[in-house]
């Protein structure tokens, strides 16, 4: 029985949840139920241990049937958690799901107050407000809107790649947009991955090729998203495709143009080798780049800078004519139903901790620089060498550089212990240097990781527990001459040590990308306090955001290793697929509406809507709201000077009654 009765007999069921001891430990639930029972219209008032459980929901459903309830109020946790649950329960019980109001007495009461009587009084006030409000509720229907089946994946690292492949294999058309000229992300720079010491390229490149080959994936590298409009199921995204000055369709990746370039040798820092080697203005990012297409660095190319160049590259490509200096930036608009943001992380700038000597001492390197050194296709062919070409006899790793540090970043970057130990083992493999790891705690939680730590110990890698105070080249003793000295307190031994080494590797932590704030605004997401993209719920919804249809995956959500990134990529793909395969999205009917007879056509509301949901109807000379476009913010409702715009679920009367309700009790 779906009674929409503002004038008829209102019969309210009130339920207060104990939530175990979470609420009942502070709020006197029975007292609240007792007080609310006295209010007009309240027909049943119960307290129960777990309202969201099966029996709890059945309690409500039974009462709806047996006591002819036509309104329900539940006082428990946050509506952001369980409003949906209870609305479903009520609907299953035969009552329109919007004859319901929820009261937050856990997150907003029992969990934040210690004074029992005050918390109980607050619960009563809030419950009273809800009981008054719910009387005014009307029967409403959720609106269904169609959902566009295509998906946008932003970011072509391992996470974005896996998400794109999963979706594409599921038959969905995917746009994979990557800012760099090649996909692969950070993982492409790794030599081996922990704890299996798998070759990173061997496990990554097949996936990269699969992306290239997949008929359902449109791969746009050297591109970025510049505008997002619309809402879940119906996003219009503008992508800026930056010119490579090489035609992607025609280039076969033979690289003869690079050979032929007037620059005989590389002169400019090679980004992929993190500045450890040089490249020419025409280059391919790395050998296994996908797409296998050359690009030209406009800032460095002689043709662009001076106009005077022999353009030997063009000659070298005479048969294919792939080089095109006239290429322009393109803005392309696409329509998608869902977006997965997998934009990854950036590494902490070790120069921010000057006492570690990065940038001052040439043999202080970061973990990623060492990663390039140990890779056989890297700048030194896999040899771990000092800057002067010698092989180091001693290497030290300093952990937690820019992590777990109140002066820089407070969080733990989660992967550094493991990748430092991995690099330590590789250094031992490539050289016969003595390796010491300076750590605060060793965190090795994943599968096979604790065993990896054991292996590191067995291999004779030394571990010194203590935060390194400084790195210096001031020798105090003979054995320190010509070396870098690490000063650290060895907390287990209880002494301050000076340990001379040839090479120091800083395990730099992960940070959100430099433009994370701009990116998250683009996609209407929030960031957490630390700057990582904010998930909808840290436990239950780690890949969803508060904006429906926008998902996050991988390190952009927080530091994590490759297995976890892939798991999140799959999770995000599954969430998107679930939405698409359902075929529609349900929109909360909290839309604004205009009572035509009341509208004077003053046009004050029309410019207020960011979704352009309000238009002016010339024949009637009144404003009209397109409910399909309205997102329910209520700004126009507050602004209408004659009170002629209303909002479902947030009517003026409903809110006034809530205000009166919270104030009519001490």
């Amino acid at each position, binding site marked *: 029985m779906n009674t929409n009765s503002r004038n008829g007999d209102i019969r309210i069921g009130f339920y207060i949840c104990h939530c175990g001891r979470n609420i009942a430990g502070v709020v006197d639930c029975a007292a609240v139920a007792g007080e609310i029972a006295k209010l007009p219209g309240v027909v049943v008032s119960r307290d129960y241990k777990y309202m969201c459980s099966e029996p709890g929901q059945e309690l409500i459903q039974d009462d709806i049937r047996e006591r002819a309830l036509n309104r329900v109020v539940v006082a428990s946790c946050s509506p952001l958690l369980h409003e949906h649950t209870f609305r479903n329960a009520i609907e299953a019980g035969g009552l329109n799901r919007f004859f319901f109001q929820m009261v937050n007495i856990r997150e907003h009461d029992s969990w934040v107050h210690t004074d029992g009587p005050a918390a109980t009084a607050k619960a009563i006030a809030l419950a009273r407000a809800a009981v008054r409000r719910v009387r005014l509720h009307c029967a409403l229907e959720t609106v269904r809107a169609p959902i566009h089946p295509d998906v946008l994946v932003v970011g072509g690292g391992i996470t974005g790649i896996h998400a794109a492949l999963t979706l594409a294999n599921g038959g969905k058309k995917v746009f994979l947009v990557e800012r760099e000229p090649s996909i692969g992300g950070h993982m492409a720079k790794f030599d081996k991955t922990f704890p299996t010491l798998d070759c990173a390229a061997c496990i990554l490149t097949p996936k990269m090729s699969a992306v290239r080959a997949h008929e359902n994936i449109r791969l746009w590298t050297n591109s970025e998203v510049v505008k997002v409009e619309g809402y879940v199921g119906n996003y219009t995204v503008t992508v800026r495709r930056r010119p490579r000055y090489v035609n992607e369709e025609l280039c076969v990746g033979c690289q003869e143009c690079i050979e032929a370039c007037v620059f005989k040798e590389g002169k400019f820092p090679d980004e992929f080798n993190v500045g450890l080697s040089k490249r020419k203005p025409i280059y391919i990012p790395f050998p296994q780049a996908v797409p296998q297409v050359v690009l030209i660095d406009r800032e460095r190319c002689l043709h662009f800078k001076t106009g005077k160049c022999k353009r030997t590259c063009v000659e070298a490509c005479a048969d294919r004519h792939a080089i095109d200096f006239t290429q322009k930036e393109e803005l392309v608009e696409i329509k998608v139903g869902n977006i997965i943001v997998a934009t990854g992380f950036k590494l902490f700038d070790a120069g921010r901790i000057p006492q570690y000597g990065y940038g001052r001492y040439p043999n202080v390197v970061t973990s990623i620089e060492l990663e390039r050194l140990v890779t056989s296709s890297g700048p030194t062919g896999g040899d771990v060498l000092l800057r002067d070409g010698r092989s180091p006899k001693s290497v030290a790793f300093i952990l937690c550089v820019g992590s777990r540090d109140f002066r820089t970043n407070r969080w733990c970057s989660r992967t550094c212990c493991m990748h430092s130990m991995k690099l330590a083992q590789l250094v031992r493999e490539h050289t016969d240097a003595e390796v010491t790891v300076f750590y605060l705690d060793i965190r090795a939680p994943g599968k096979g990781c604790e065993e990896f730590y054991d292996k590191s110990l067995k291999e004779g890698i030394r571990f010194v527990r203590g935060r390194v105070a400084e790195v210096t080249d001031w020798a105090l003793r003979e054995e320190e001459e010509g070396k870098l000295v690490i000063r650290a307190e060895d907390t287990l031994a209880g002494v301050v040590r000076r340990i001379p080494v040839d090479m120091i590797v800083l395990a730099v932590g992960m940070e959100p990308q430099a433009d994370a704030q701009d990116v998250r605004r683009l996609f209407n997401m929030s960031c957490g306090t630390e700057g990582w993209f904010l998930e909808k719920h840290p436990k239950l919804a780690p890949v969803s955001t508060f904006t429906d249809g926008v998902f996050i995956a991988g390190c952009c959500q927080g530091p994590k290793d490759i297995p976890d990134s892939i798991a999140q990529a799959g999770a995000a793909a599954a969430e998107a697929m679930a939405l698409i395969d359902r075929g529609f999205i349900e929109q909360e009917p909290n839309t604004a509406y205009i009572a035509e007879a009341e509208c004077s*056509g*003053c*046009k004050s509301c029309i410019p207020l809507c960011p979704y352009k949901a309000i238009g002016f109807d010339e024949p009637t000379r009144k404003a009209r709201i397109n409910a399909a476009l309205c997102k329910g913010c209520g700004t126009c409702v507050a*602004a209408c000077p004659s*009170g002629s715009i209303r909002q479902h679920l947030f009517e003026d009367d409903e809110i*006034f009654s809530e205000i009166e309700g919270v104030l009519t009790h001490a």
Partner: protein
Amino acid sequence: MPKPKVAIYWCASCGGCEEAVVDLAEDILGILDAVDIVFWPVAMDFKKSDVAALPDQALFATLLNGAIRTSDQEEMARLLRRKSRHLVAYGACASLGGVPGLANQFSREQLLRFAYDEAPTLGADRKTRPALETRHNGHPLVLPELDETVRSLDQVVEVDYYLPGCPPTPKLTQAALLALLSDNPPPRGSVLAPDIALCDECPRKASKPQDLSFSEFKRPHQMMIDAEKCLLAQGLVCCGPATRGGCGAQCIGGNMPCTGCFGPTSRVRDQGAKILSSLCANVAAKDETAIQRTLDGIPDPLGTFYRYALPRSILRRSGYAAAETTPK
């Protein structure tokens, strides 16, 4: 059969509502055909004692204009309520408190002090506070007491109908009386004017843009006002969107913005708050400094937004916390 008796009385008012009745011109003859006016201090010589002598509910209707702000006015309001079947709050002052309602910005003490102690035109020997009672030539003279707060009529007695406007138009007055006299009078508590904002009937409606955006606010004396274009579009504060129509947009016809005298529509509880909400929502500025500068164009928000409706607003009057400053 005797004609229905009608009374017209004034409380804290300017006399404009009396004028409005007179403005019925020849149409007043039609009214007089239908009713007997038995009490109208401004025009006829009946006394309070005549009203008091009537049986209760003997009056068909009383059109009471003016706000209630003295003990005498309250007494008359209660008397006329008892003696009338229909009590009509006639005009903005009775309906909403009206312009006299702006006195609610001050305390009684502040008002008396200014008027009788501090006004610049008072000579040193003229500073006398009026007393409630005095004797002159052996006769007692009594003055009514000034209330602390100005009230609308329905804040003192129960009101049956409202005829808004400062003053109500002759057309609306006539229509109201005829409606009351008809076999199907409107429901009790009705406002006898359209329940839609003024923009609906404004002749300049078409010239109002659909993307109105204020980069500044101007006051009428600060500009040459275009006689054809929507006044809000010219940057003036026009309260039309927040005010009931029915007046024929006379002020707009006189090339001046609406100041809100017909009060809010039935959906609105506080007219001033809605005017504020709407104007601010349409301000163009997006940063604090620019917003500040734009809003400085409204130097007196209280007076501008609550010109007629302060006593009937949600807050009704100022509290006294910032109180003892002399009114300017």
